[in-house]
Protein backbone atom coordinates (compact mmCIF):
# COMPACT_ATOMS: atom_id res chain seq x y z
CA UNK A 1 0.00 0.00 0.00
CA UNK A 2 1.09 3.60 -0.53
CA UNK A 3 2.73 5.47 2.31
CA UNK A 4 1.77 9.00 1.23
CA UNK A 5 -0.91 10.14 -1.20
CA UNK A 6 -1.18 13.62 -2.66
CA UNK A 7 -4.75 14.73 -3.31
CA UNK A 8 -4.90 16.87 -6.45
CA UNK A 9 -8.26 18.37 -5.59
CA UNK A 10 -10.08 20.55 -3.08
CA UNK A 11 -13.27 20.74 -1.02
CA UNK A 12 -15.52 17.86 -0.13
CA UNK A 13 -13.90 15.25 -2.40
CA UNK A 14 -10.46 16.04 -0.98
CA UNK A 15 -11.88 15.56 2.52
CA UNK A 16 -13.49 12.30 1.37
CA UNK A 17 -10.17 11.02 0.03
CA UNK A 18 -8.37 12.01 3.25
CA UNK A 19 -10.90 9.87 5.14
CA UNK A 20 -10.19 6.84 2.95
CA UNK A 21 -6.41 7.31 3.23
CA UNK A 22 -6.60 7.59 7.00
CA UNK A 23 -8.58 4.38 7.24
CA UNK A 24 -5.84 2.63 5.30
CA UNK A 25 -3.06 4.23 7.34
CA UNK A 26 -1.79 6.39 4.46
CA UNK A 27 -0.41 9.89 5.08
CA UNK A 28 -1.98 12.68 3.01
CA UNK A 29 -0.77 15.82 1.26
CA UNK A 30 -3.31 18.52 0.45
CA UNK A 31 -2.62 21.00 -2.33
CA UNK A 32 -4.42 24.29 -2.44
CA UNK A 33 -4.61 27.60 -4.21
CA UNK A 34 -4.17 30.88 -2.38
CA UNK A 35 -7.95 31.15 -2.13
CA UNK A 36 -8.17 27.85 -0.28
CA UNK A 37 -5.81 28.33 2.66
CA UNK A 38 -8.73 27.95 5.06
CA UNK A 39 -10.41 25.11 3.23
CA UNK A 40 -11.10 22.07 5.38
CA UNK A 41 -9.03 19.65 3.30
CA UNK A 42 -5.95 21.77 4.07
CA UNK A 43 -6.71 21.60 7.79
CA UNK A 44 -7.31 17.85 7.81
CA UNK A 45 -4.42 16.63 5.68
CA UNK A 46 -1.12 15.68 7.28
CA UNK A 47 0.73 18.17 5.04
CA UNK A 48 -0.28 20.90 2.66
CA UNK A 49 1.32 22.81 -0.18
CA UNK A 50 0.13 26.04 -1.75
CA UNK A 51 0.41 25.46 -5.51
CA UNK A 52 -0.74 28.70 -7.06
CA UNK A 53 -3.05 31.67 -7.25
CA UNK A 54 -6.86 31.32 -7.05
CA UNK A 55 -7.66 30.63 -10.73
CA UNK A 56 -7.81 26.86 -11.31
CA UNK A 57 -5.73 26.90 -14.45
CA UNK A 58 -2.79 28.31 -12.51
CA UNK A 59 -3.21 25.99 -9.52
CA UNK A 60 -5.42 22.87 -9.48
CA UNK A 61 -5.12 22.43 -13.25
CA UNK A 62 -1.40 23.14 -13.39
CA UNK A 63 0.27 19.77 -13.92
CA UNK A 64 3.74 21.03 -13.16
CA UNK A 65 2.75 22.62 -9.82
CA UNK A 66 0.90 19.52 -8.70
CA UNK A 67 3.82 17.28 -9.66
CA UNK A 68 6.31 19.56 -7.90
CA UNK A 69 4.20 19.42 -4.77
CA UNK A 70 4.20 15.62 -4.96
CA UNK A 71 7.96 15.58 -5.38
CA UNK A 72 8.86 17.98 -2.57
CA UNK A 73 6.59 16.11 -0.15
CA UNK A 74 7.69 12.64 -1.22
CA UNK A 75 4.22 11.39 -2.11
CA UNK A 76 4.14 8.03 -3.88
CA UNK A 77 0.69 8.32 -5.45
CA UNK A 78 -1.77 10.99 -6.57
CA UNK A 79 -5.55 10.86 -6.26
CA UNK A 80 -7.15 13.28 -8.71
CA UNK A 81 -10.71 13.24 -7.28
CA UNK A 82 -13.24 14.37 -9.90
CA UNK A 83 -13.02 17.36 -12.22
CA UNK A 84 -9.71 19.27 -12.53
CA UNK A 85 -7.08 16.74 -13.71
CA UNK A 86 -9.15 13.60 -13.09
CA UNK A 87 -9.79 12.76 -16.74
CA UNK A 88 -6.62 14.25 -18.17
CA UNK A 89 -4.76 11.37 -19.82
CA UNK A 90 -1.63 13.48 -20.18
CA UNK A 91 -1.56 14.11 -16.43
CA UNK A 92 -2.01 10.40 -15.70
CA UNK A 93 0.92 9.72 -18.01
CA UNK A 94 3.17 12.34 -16.38
CA UNK A 95 2.40 10.90 -12.95
CA UNK A 96 3.51 7.49 -14.14
CA UNK A 97 6.62 8.85 -15.87
CA UNK A 98 7.66 10.53 -12.62
CA UNK A 99 7.53 7.14 -10.93
CA UNK A 100 4.34 7.84 -8.97
CA UNK A 101 1.04 5.99 -9.16
CA UNK A 102 -2.02 7.65 -10.64
CA UNK A 103 -5.04 6.49 -8.66
CA UNK A 104 -7.37 5.86 -11.55
CA UNK A 105 -7.48 4.00 -14.85
CA UNK A 106 -4.57 3.72 -17.32
CA UNK A 107 -4.06 6.76 -19.59
CA UNK A 108 -5.21 4.76 -22.63
CA UNK A 109 -8.58 3.99 -21.04
CA UNK A 110 -9.03 7.67 -20.15
CA UNK A 111 -8.14 8.66 -23.70
CA UNK A 112 -10.41 6.10 -25.32
CA UNK A 113 -13.43 7.00 -23.23
CA UNK A 114 -12.70 10.70 -23.57
CA UNK A 115 -13.26 10.44 -27.33
CA UNK A 116 -16.99 10.05 -27.88
CA UNK A 117 -16.83 8.45 -31.29
CA UNK A 118 -14.08 6.00 -30.33
CA UNK A 119 -15.86 5.13 -27.09
CA UNK A 120 -19.08 4.45 -28.99
CA UNK A 121 -17.26 2.26 -31.48
CA UNK A 122 -15.41 0.38 -28.76
CA UNK A 123 -18.48 -0.49 -26.68
CA UNK A 124 -20.60 -1.26 -29.75
CA UNK A 125 -17.97 -3.83 -30.72
CA UNK A 126 -18.55 -5.36 -27.26
CA UNK A 127 -22.26 -5.59 -28.13
CA UNK A 128 -23.27 -2.83 -25.78
CA UNK A 129 -26.23 -0.94 -27.31
CA UNK A 130 -25.50 2.58 -28.54
CA UNK A 131 -28.09 5.08 -29.72
CA UNK A 132 -28.86 3.92 -33.30
CA UNK A 133 -28.11 6.49 -35.97
CA UNK A 134 -26.00 7.53 -38.92
CA UNK A 135 -22.96 8.77 -37.00
CA UNK A 136 -21.71 10.35 -40.19
CA UNK A 137 -23.37 13.16 -42.20
CA UNK A 138 -26.31 12.07 -44.35
CA UNK A 139 -25.80 12.13 -48.12
CA UNK A 140 -29.38 13.05 -48.94
CA UNK A 141 -33.01 12.94 -47.85
CA UNK A 142 -33.58 9.39 -49.00
CA UNK A 143 -30.72 8.11 -46.89
CA UNK A 144 -32.39 9.76 -43.89
CA UNK A 145 -35.71 8.11 -44.68
CA UNK A 146 -34.17 4.69 -45.17
CA UNK A 147 -32.21 4.93 -41.95
CA UNK A 148 -35.25 6.13 -40.00
CA UNK A 149 -37.22 3.18 -41.31
CA UNK A 150 -34.49 0.85 -40.08
CA UNK A 151 -34.15 2.27 -36.56
CA UNK A 152 -37.78 3.30 -36.04
CA UNK A 153 -39.45 6.62 -35.29
CA UNK A 154 -39.21 9.09 -33.61
CA UNK A 155 -35.85 10.22 -34.88
CA UNK A 156 -33.89 13.43 -34.59
CA UNK A 157 -31.75 15.28 -37.08
CA UNK A 158 -28.71 17.03 -35.63
CA UNK A 159 -26.19 19.39 -37.17
CA UNK A 160 -22.81 17.65 -37.50
CA UNK A 161 -21.05 20.85 -36.51
CA UNK A 162 -23.68 21.70 -33.97
CA UNK A 163 -24.51 21.81 -30.34
CA UNK A 164 -26.76 23.70 -27.96
CA UNK A 165 -29.99 22.52 -29.57
CA UNK A 166 -29.65 24.58 -32.73
CA UNK A 167 -30.17 22.78 -36.01
CA UNK A 168 -32.02 19.97 -34.25
CA UNK A 169 -35.31 18.68 -35.72
CA UNK A 170 -37.44 15.84 -34.39
CA UNK A 171 -39.66 13.72 -36.63
CA UNK A 172 -42.28 11.14 -35.70
CA UNK A 173 -42.93 9.82 -39.24
CA UNK A 174 -41.69 9.83 -42.81
CA UNK A 175 -43.62 12.90 -43.98
CA UNK A 176 -42.37 14.93 -41.08
CA UNK A 177 -38.82 13.73 -41.64
CA UNK A 178 -38.84 14.67 -45.32
CA UNK A 179 -40.08 18.16 -44.39
CA UNK A 180 -37.63 18.49 -41.49
CA UNK A 181 -34.60 17.46 -43.55
CA UNK A 182 -34.35 20.70 -45.51
CA UNK A 183 -35.19 22.88 -42.50
CA UNK A 184 -32.51 21.22 -40.41
CA UNK A 185 -29.92 21.65 -43.16
CA UNK A 186 -30.65 25.31 -43.70
CA UNK A 187 -30.68 25.94 -39.94
CA UNK A 188 -27.34 24.16 -39.66
CA UNK A 189 -25.97 26.22 -42.54
CA UNK A 190 -27.11 29.46 -40.93
CA UNK A 191 -25.93 28.54 -37.45
CA UNK A 192 -22.61 26.81 -38.17
CA UNK A 193 -21.81 27.55 -41.80
CA UNK A 194 -22.02 23.82 -42.49
CA UNK A 195 -25.23 22.20 -43.64
CA UNK A 196 -24.36 18.58 -42.94
CA UNK A 197 -26.74 16.79 -40.61
CA UNK A 198 -26.89 13.31 -39.12
CA UNK A 199 -29.76 11.27 -37.74
CA UNK A 200 -30.30 9.48 -34.44
CA UNK A 201 -33.09 7.66 -32.71
CA UNK A 202 -34.97 10.16 -30.55
CA UNK A 203 -35.60 9.07 -26.97
CA UNK A 204 -38.77 10.72 -25.74
CA UNK A 205 -38.38 10.96 -22.00
CA UNK A 206 -35.18 9.09 -21.26
CA UNK A 207 -33.81 8.40 -17.84
CA UNK A 208 -30.16 8.81 -16.96
CA UNK A 209 -29.07 5.49 -15.48
CA UNK A 210 -25.42 4.84 -14.69
CA UNK A 211 -23.62 1.78 -13.38
CA UNK A 212 -20.73 1.84 -10.97
CA UNK A 213 -17.98 -0.54 -12.00
CA UNK A 214 -14.79 -1.66 -10.28
CA UNK A 215 -11.95 -3.40 -12.08
CA UNK A 216 -8.78 -4.67 -10.43
CA UNK A 217 -5.41 -5.74 -11.74
CA UNK A 218 -6.35 -9.39 -11.24
CA UNK A 219 -8.74 -9.08 -14.18
CA UNK A 220 -11.85 -8.95 -12.04
CA UNK A 221 -14.52 -6.49 -13.19
CA UNK A 222 -17.78 -6.12 -11.28
CA UNK A 223 -20.64 -3.67 -11.17
CA UNK A 224 -22.23 -2.36 -7.97
CA UNK A 225 -25.66 -1.59 -9.30
CA UNK A 226 -27.03 1.56 -10.76
CA UNK A 227 -27.67 5.17 -9.85
CA UNK A 228 -30.53 7.08 -11.39
CA UNK A 229 -29.46 10.67 -12.10
CA UNK A 230 -32.37 11.91 -14.17
CA UNK A 231 -32.91 15.01 -12.05
CA UNK A 232 -30.49 17.33 -13.80
CA UNK A 233 -30.41 20.83 -15.18
CA UNK A 234 -28.21 21.70 -18.13
CA UNK A 235 -26.49 18.33 -17.68
CA UNK A 236 -25.68 19.19 -14.04
CA UNK A 237 -26.99 16.44 -11.79
CA UNK A 238 -29.02 17.66 -8.86
CA UNK A 239 -30.41 14.52 -7.20
CA UNK A 240 -29.19 10.94 -7.60
CA UNK A 241 -30.59 7.75 -6.17
CA UNK A 242 -30.13 4.02 -6.05
CA UNK A 243 -31.79 1.74 -6.91
CA UNK A 244 -33.63 3.31 -9.84
CA UNK A 245 -37.42 3.04 -9.51
CA UNK A 246 -37.45 2.03 -13.19
CA UNK A 247 -35.26 -1.06 -13.17
CA UNK A 248 -36.52 -4.61 -12.78
CA UNK A 249 -34.00 -7.13 -11.43
CA UNK A 250 -33.72 -8.59 -14.95
CA UNK A 251 -33.04 -5.22 -16.57
CA UNK A 252 -30.54 -4.36 -13.83
CA UNK A 253 -28.75 -7.59 -14.48
CA UNK A 254 -28.68 -7.02 -18.23
CA UNK A 255 -27.52 -3.40 -18.03
CA UNK A 256 -24.97 -4.31 -15.38
CA UNK A 257 -23.50 -6.92 -17.65
CA UNK A 258 -23.39 -4.36 -20.47
CA UNK A 259 -21.54 -1.94 -18.17
CA UNK A 260 -18.97 -4.60 -17.30
CA UNK A 261 -18.57 -5.41 -21.00
CA UNK A 262 -17.99 -1.73 -21.79
CA UNK A 263 -15.32 -1.52 -19.08
CA UNK A 264 -13.68 -4.70 -20.29
CA UNK A 265 -13.60 -3.36 -23.86
CA UNK A 266 -11.67 -0.31 -22.60
CA UNK A 267 -9.20 -2.53 -20.68
CA UNK A 268 -10.45 -0.62 -17.68
CA UNK A 269 -8.88 -0.56 -14.23
CA UNK A 270 -10.05 1.07 -11.00
CA UNK A 271 -13.46 2.72 -10.39
CA UNK A 272 -15.52 3.99 -13.29
CA UNK A 273 -19.07 4.73 -14.29
CA UNK A 274 -20.91 3.64 -17.41
CA UNK A 275 -23.74 6.01 -18.27
CA UNK A 276 -26.83 4.91 -20.18
CA UNK A 277 -29.99 6.51 -21.45
CA UNK A 278 -32.99 4.35 -20.62
CA UNK A 279 -35.99 4.83 -22.93
CA UNK A 280 -39.57 4.49 -21.80
CA UNK A 281 -39.85 1.17 -23.62
CA UNK A 282 -37.03 -0.31 -21.54
CA UNK A 283 -34.40 -0.10 -24.27
CA UNK A 284 -31.11 1.38 -23.12
CA UNK A 285 -28.15 2.93 -24.85
CA UNK A 286 -24.55 3.60 -23.85
CA UNK A 287 -23.89 7.32 -23.47
CA UNK A 288 -20.38 7.58 -22.10
CA UNK A 289 -18.01 6.22 -19.51
CA UNK A 290 -16.64 8.46 -16.76
CA UNK A 291 -13.15 7.35 -15.91
CA UNK A 292 -13.00 8.63 -12.33
CA UNK A 293 -14.74 8.53 -8.98
CA UNK A 294 -17.99 10.46 -9.28
CA UNK A 295 -19.61 13.13 -7.16
CA UNK A 296 -22.52 10.78 -6.51
CA UNK A 297 -20.46 7.70 -5.56
CA UNK A 298 -21.75 7.73 -1.94
CA UNK A 299 -25.20 6.70 -3.17
CA UNK A 300 -23.71 3.35 -4.14
CA UNK A 301 -21.69 3.20 -0.91
CA UNK A 302 -24.87 3.60 1.15
CA UNK A 303 -26.75 0.72 -0.48
CA UNK A 304 -23.78 -1.66 -0.85
CA UNK A 305 -21.65 -0.89 2.21
CA UNK A 306 -18.57 -0.78 -0.05
CA UNK A 307 -16.10 2.08 0.46
CA UNK A 308 -15.36 2.96 -3.17
CA UNK A 309 -12.44 5.29 -2.49
CA UNK A 310 -10.68 2.69 -0.37
CA UNK A 311 -11.22 0.23 -3.22
CA UNK A 312 -9.64 2.75 -5.58
CA UNK A 313 -6.58 2.95 -3.36
CA UNK A 314 -6.32 -0.84 -3.03
CA UNK A 315 -6.68 -1.39 -6.76
CA UNK A 316 -4.14 1.31 -7.61
CA UNK A 317 -1.70 -0.31 -5.19
CA UNK A 318 -2.05 -3.56 -7.12
CA UNK A 319 -4.15 -5.32 -4.51
CA UNK A 320 -7.33 -7.17 -5.39
CA UNK A 321 -10.59 -5.40 -4.58
CA UNK A 322 -11.70 -6.32 -1.06
CA UNK A 323 -15.16 -7.54 -2.02
CA UNK A 324 -15.33 -11.27 -1.31
CA UNK A 325 -15.57 -13.19 -4.55
CA UNK A 326 -18.34 -15.49 -3.53
CA UNK A 327 -20.40 -12.68 -2.11
CA UNK A 328 -22.58 -11.03 -4.70
CA UNK A 329 -22.76 -7.31 -3.89
CA UNK A 330 -26.32 -7.00 -2.63
CA UNK A 331 -27.90 -3.58 -2.50
CA UNK A 332 -29.97 -3.03 0.61
CA UNK A 333 -32.49 -0.25 1.10
CA UNK A 334 -32.60 2.97 -0.86
CA UNK A 335 -30.25 5.96 -0.98
CA UNK A 336 -30.70 9.49 -2.32
CA UNK A 337 -28.12 12.23 -2.73
CA UNK A 338 -28.98 15.93 -2.73
CA UNK A 339 -26.29 18.24 -4.03
CA UNK A 340 -26.33 21.31 -1.83
CA UNK A 341 -24.94 24.19 -3.84
CA UNK A 342 -24.18 27.72 -2.75
CA UNK A 343 -26.60 29.19 -5.23
CA UNK A 344 -29.93 30.90 -5.50
CA UNK A 345 -32.58 28.16 -5.51
CA UNK A 346 -34.65 29.99 -8.12
CA UNK A 347 -32.17 31.65 -10.46
CA UNK A 348 -29.33 29.14 -9.90
CA UNK A 349 -26.93 32.10 -9.64
CA UNK A 350 -23.85 31.22 -7.53
CA UNK A 351 -23.89 32.62 -4.00
CA UNK A 352 -20.36 32.58 -2.61
CA UNK A 353 -19.77 34.09 0.83
CA UNK A 354 -19.08 33.46 4.47
CA UNK A 355 -20.93 30.73 6.38
CA UNK A 356 -22.11 32.59 9.46
CA UNK A 357 -24.01 29.69 11.01
CA UNK A 358 -24.01 26.00 10.26
CA UNK A 359 -25.84 23.10 11.78
CA UNK A 360 -25.71 19.79 9.90
CA UNK A 361 -28.40 17.13 10.10
CA UNK A 362 -27.54 13.86 11.84
CA UNK A 363 -29.46 10.89 13.15
CA UNK A 364 -30.33 7.64 11.41
CA UNK A 365 -29.65 7.18 7.73
CA UNK A 366 -27.99 10.55 7.18
CA UNK A 367 -24.55 11.14 5.70
CA UNK A 368 -23.04 14.52 4.95
CA UNK A 369 -19.92 14.91 2.84
CA UNK A 370 -18.77 18.49 3.12
CA UNK A 371 -15.87 20.82 3.61
CA UNK A 372 -18.04 23.47 5.26
CA UNK A 373 -17.61 24.79 8.75
CA UNK A 374 -19.03 27.79 10.50
CA UNK A 375 -16.86 30.79 9.67
CA UNK A 376 -15.64 29.36 6.35
CA UNK A 377 -15.83 31.61 3.31
CA UNK A 378 -16.85 29.90 0.07
CA UNK A 379 -14.57 31.33 -2.61
CA UNK A 380 -16.03 32.42 -5.92
CA UNK A 381 -13.37 30.71 -8.03
CA UNK A 382 -14.63 27.15 -7.96
CA UNK A 383 -17.87 25.26 -8.38
CA UNK A 384 -20.70 25.93 -6.00
CA UNK A 385 -21.04 22.43 -4.50
CA UNK A 386 -20.79 22.96 -0.77
CA UNK A 387 -22.15 19.70 0.63
CA UNK A 388 -23.63 16.41 -0.42
CA UNK A 389 -26.51 15.36 1.76
CA UNK A 390 -27.22 11.66 1.53
CA UNK A 391 -30.02 9.71 3.10
CA UNK A 392 -30.62 6.00 3.37
CA UNK A 393 -33.99 4.42 4.05
CA UNK A 394 -35.26 0.87 4.26
CA UNK A 395 -37.23 1.70 1.10
CA UNK A 396 -37.68 4.64 -1.27
CA UNK A 397 -40.55 6.09 0.77
CA UNK A 398 -38.49 6.18 3.93
CA UNK A 399 -35.56 7.69 2.04
CA UNK A 400 -37.83 10.47 0.77
CA UNK A 401 -39.27 11.43 4.18
CA UNK A 402 -35.81 11.21 5.67
CA UNK A 403 -34.47 13.42 2.91
CA UNK A 404 -37.13 15.97 3.65
CA UNK A 405 -36.42 16.09 7.38
CA UNK A 406 -32.66 16.15 6.84
CA UNK A 407 -33.00 19.06 4.41
CA UNK A 408 -35.18 20.86 6.94
CA UNK A 409 -32.62 20.26 9.69
CA UNK A 410 -29.70 21.41 7.48
CA UNK A 411 -29.22 25.00 8.61
CA UNK A 412 -26.86 27.30 6.73
CA UNK A 413 -26.71 31.04 7.10
CA UNK A 414 -24.59 33.49 5.14
CA UNK A 415 -25.12 32.13 1.63
CA UNK A 416 -28.11 31.07 -0.44
CA UNK A 417 -28.42 27.34 -0.95
CA UNK A 418 -30.27 24.90 -3.14
CA UNK A 419 -32.00 23.37 -0.09
CA UNK A 420 -35.35 25.02 -0.93
CA UNK A 421 -35.11 23.67 -4.49
CA UNK A 422 -34.62 20.14 -3.17
CA UNK A 423 -37.62 20.49 -0.87
CA UNK A 424 -39.67 21.64 -3.84
CA UNK A 425 -38.59 18.67 -5.94
CA UNK A 426 -39.34 16.25 -3.06
CA UNK A 427 -42.84 17.71 -2.91
CA UNK A 428 -43.53 16.89 -6.58
CA UNK A 429 -45.94 14.04 -7.12
CA UNK A 430 -43.86 12.85 -10.08
CA UNK A 431 -40.78 12.61 -7.93
CA UNK A 432 -42.59 10.74 -5.17
CA UNK A 433 -44.01 8.31 -7.71
CA UNK A 434 -40.60 7.80 -9.30
CA UNK A 435 -41.76 9.20 -12.65
CA UNK A 436 -38.41 10.66 -13.62
CA UNK A 437 -36.74 11.67 -16.84
CA UNK A 438 -33.99 14.02 -17.90
CA UNK A 439 -36.75 16.51 -18.70
CA UNK A 440 -37.95 16.58 -15.07
CA UNK A 441 -36.36 19.95 -14.34
CA UNK A 442 -37.94 21.57 -17.42
CA UNK A 443 -40.91 22.44 -15.21
CA UNK A 444 -38.72 24.90 -13.34
CA UNK A 445 -37.24 26.45 -16.48
CA UNK A 446 -37.25 30.23 -16.32
Amino acid at each position, binding site marked *: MFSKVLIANRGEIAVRIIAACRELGIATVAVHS*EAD*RECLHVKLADQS*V*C*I*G*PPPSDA*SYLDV*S*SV*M*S*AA*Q*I*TGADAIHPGYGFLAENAHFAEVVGE*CGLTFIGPPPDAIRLMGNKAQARQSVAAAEVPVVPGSERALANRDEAVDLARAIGYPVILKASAGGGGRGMRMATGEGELRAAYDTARSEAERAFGDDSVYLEKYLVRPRHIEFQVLADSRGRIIHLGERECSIQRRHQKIIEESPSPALSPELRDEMGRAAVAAARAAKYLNAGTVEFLLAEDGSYYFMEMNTRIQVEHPVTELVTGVDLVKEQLRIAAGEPMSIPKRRQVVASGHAIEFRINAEDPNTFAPSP*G*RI*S*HLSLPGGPGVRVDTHLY*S*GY*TIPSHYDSLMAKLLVWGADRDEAIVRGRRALEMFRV*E*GVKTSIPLHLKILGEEDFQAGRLSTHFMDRYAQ
Partner: protein
Amino acid sequence: MMFKFDEICELIKLVAATGVAAVELDHGGSKLRIDGVPPVVFADGPSAAAAAAAAPRPAPAPAPGSAEAQAIADEGLHWVASPIVGTFYRAPNPDAEPYVKVGDIVHEGQTLCIVEAMKLMNEIECDVAGTIVKVLPDNAQPVEYGERLFAIRPA
Protein backbone atom coordinates in the same frame (compact mmCIF):
# COMPACT_ATOMS: atom_id res chain seq x y z
CA MET B 1 9.69 41.59 23.39
CA MET B 2 8.60 40.42 26.80
CA PHE B 3 7.26 37.13 25.43
CA LYS B 4 8.82 34.55 23.21
CA PHE B 5 7.26 33.93 19.84
CA ASP B 6 5.88 30.55 20.94
CA GLU B 7 4.27 32.09 23.97
CA ILE B 8 2.53 34.69 21.87
CA CYS B 9 1.29 31.95 19.58
CA GLU B 10 -0.07 30.16 22.65
CA LEU B 11 -1.79 33.31 23.81
CA ILE B 12 -3.40 33.85 20.42
CA LYS B 13 -4.71 30.30 20.40
CA LEU B 14 -6.00 30.71 23.92
CA VAL B 15 -7.78 33.93 23.10
CA ALA B 16 -9.42 32.28 20.10
CA ALA B 17 -10.33 29.14 22.02
CA THR B 18 -11.77 30.82 25.07
CA GLY B 19 -13.67 33.39 23.07
CA VAL B 20 -12.57 36.36 25.16
CA ALA B 21 -12.90 39.67 23.35
CA ALA B 22 -9.40 41.04 23.88
CA VAL B 23 -6.21 40.77 25.87
CA GLU B 24 -3.96 43.78 26.28
CA LEU B 25 -0.56 43.91 27.94
CA ASP B 26 1.68 46.87 28.51
CA HIS B 27 4.94 46.26 30.30
CA GLY B 28 8.24 48.06 30.29
CA GLY B 29 7.55 49.79 27.02
CA SER B 30 6.41 46.57 25.31
CA LYS B 31 2.81 46.30 24.26
CA LEU B 32 0.78 43.32 23.18
CA ARG B 33 -2.83 43.36 22.18
CA ILE B 34 -4.83 40.38 20.95
CA ASP B 35 -8.38 40.93 19.81
CA GLY B 36 -10.53 37.82 19.98
CA VAL B 37 -12.62 36.17 17.30
CA PRO B 38 -15.50 38.56 16.55
CA PRO B 39 -18.86 37.42 17.94
CA VAL B 40 -20.96 35.27 15.66
CA VAL B 41 -24.28 36.83 14.86
CA PHE B 42 -26.85 34.51 13.39
CA ALA B 43 -29.02 36.22 10.91
CA ASP B 44 -30.62 35.53 7.57
CA GLY B 45 -29.94 38.87 6.10
CA PRO B 46 -26.68 40.66 5.52
CA SER B 47 -25.13 41.01 8.94
CA ALA B 48 -22.57 43.21 10.52
CA ALA B 49 -20.66 40.16 11.70
CA ALA B 50 -20.05 38.95 8.17
CA ALA B 51 -18.53 42.27 7.24
CA ALA B 52 -16.54 42.45 10.47
CA ALA B 53 -15.05 39.00 9.91
CA ALA B 54 -13.94 39.72 6.37
CA ALA B 55 -10.51 40.84 7.50
CA PRO B 56 -8.34 41.76 4.54
CA ARG B 57 -5.56 39.27 3.93
CA PRO B 58 -2.23 40.70 2.84
CA ALA B 59 -0.84 39.22 -0.36
CA PRO B 60 1.44 37.37 -0.61
CA ALA B 61 0.81 35.97 2.85
CA PRO B 62 3.73 34.55 4.77
CA ALA B 63 3.87 30.79 4.58
CA PRO B 64 2.24 29.09 7.56
CA GLY B 65 4.81 28.37 10.21
CA SER B 66 7.31 30.79 8.76
CA ALA B 67 8.06 32.40 12.06
CA GLU B 68 10.78 34.67 10.87
CA ALA B 69 8.66 36.08 8.11
CA GLN B 70 6.15 37.00 10.77
CA ALA B 71 8.71 38.51 13.09
CA ILE B 72 10.20 40.97 10.64
CA ALA B 73 6.97 41.82 8.86
CA ASP B 74 5.62 45.33 8.51
CA GLU B 75 8.90 47.15 8.36
CA GLY B 76 8.57 48.60 4.90
CA LEU B 77 10.45 45.72 3.35
CA HIS B 78 9.92 44.30 -0.09
CA TRP B 79 9.34 40.56 -0.30
CA VAL B 80 10.32 38.28 -3.12
CA ALA B 81 7.99 35.27 -3.11
CA SER B 82 8.32 31.98 -4.95
CA PRO B 83 6.24 31.99 -8.13
CA ILE B 84 6.25 28.18 -8.23
CA VAL B 85 6.32 25.11 -6.04
CA GLY B 86 9.70 23.46 -5.90
CA THR B 87 13.07 23.21 -4.20
CA PHE B 88 14.97 26.37 -3.30
CA TYR B 89 18.65 26.61 -4.19
CA ARG B 90 20.83 29.58 -3.32
CA ALA B 91 23.53 28.74 -5.85
CA PRO B 92 23.63 27.44 -9.43
CA ASN B 93 25.39 24.27 -8.25
CA PRO B 94 26.48 22.77 -4.93
CA ASP B 95 30.05 24.01 -5.24
CA ALA B 96 29.24 27.54 -6.36
CA GLU B 97 28.85 30.65 -4.24
CA PRO B 98 25.28 31.73 -3.45
CA TYR B 99 23.74 34.12 -5.96
CA VAL B 100 23.21 36.64 -3.16
CA LYS B 101 23.74 36.93 0.57
CA VAL B 102 22.51 39.27 3.29
CA GLY B 103 23.89 42.78 2.82
CA ASP B 104 24.29 42.44 -0.95
CA ILE B 105 23.04 45.29 -3.07
CA VAL B 106 20.80 43.92 -5.81
CA HIS B 107 19.25 45.40 -8.90
CA GLU B 108 16.09 44.62 -10.84
CA GLY B 109 16.44 41.55 -13.02
CA GLN B 110 19.31 40.09 -11.03
CA THR B 111 19.07 36.34 -10.34
CA LEU B 112 18.50 35.72 -6.64
CA CYS B 113 18.11 31.94 -6.51
CA ILE B 114 16.86 28.87 -8.30
CA VAL B 115 13.61 27.05 -7.61
CA GLU B 116 13.73 23.59 -9.11
CA ALA B 117 10.44 22.11 -10.25
CA MET B 118 10.01 18.99 -12.37
CA LYS B 119 13.78 18.86 -12.94
CA LEU B 120 13.72 22.38 -14.41
CA MET B 121 15.93 25.00 -12.81
CA ASN B 122 13.91 28.21 -12.64
CA GLU B 123 15.97 31.31 -11.99
CA ILE B 124 14.12 33.71 -9.77
CA GLU B 125 14.86 37.34 -10.62
CA CYS B 126 14.80 40.35 -8.39
CA ASP B 127 11.93 42.75 -9.09
CA VAL B 128 13.28 45.73 -7.14
CA ALA B 129 16.58 47.45 -6.50
CA GLY B 130 17.80 47.39 -2.90
CA THR B 131 19.67 45.51 -0.21
CA ILE B 132 19.13 41.89 0.82
CA VAL B 133 17.99 41.95 4.46
CA LYS B 134 17.06 38.31 4.92
CA VAL B 135 17.13 34.98 3.08
CA LEU B 136 14.24 32.96 4.41
CA PRO B 137 14.40 29.32 3.26
CA ASP B 138 17.42 27.17 3.88
CA ASN B 139 19.27 25.90 0.88
CA ALA B 140 17.65 22.83 -0.74
CA GLN B 141 14.46 23.40 1.22
CA PRO B 142 11.07 22.80 -0.47
CA VAL B 143 9.05 25.97 -0.98
CA GLU B 144 5.40 26.40 -1.88
CA TYR B 145 3.73 28.89 -4.17
CA GLY B 146 3.79 32.39 -2.69
CA GLU B 147 6.29 31.48 0.01
CA ARG B 148 8.59 34.37 0.91
CA LEU B 149 12.18 33.86 -0.18
CA PHE B 150 13.96 37.18 0.33
CA ALA B 151 13.41 40.38 2.25
CA ILE B 152 14.83 43.40 0.44
CA ARG B 153 15.10 46.94 1.68
CA PRO B 154 14.35 49.02 -1.43
CA ALA B 155 17.02 51.51 -2.39
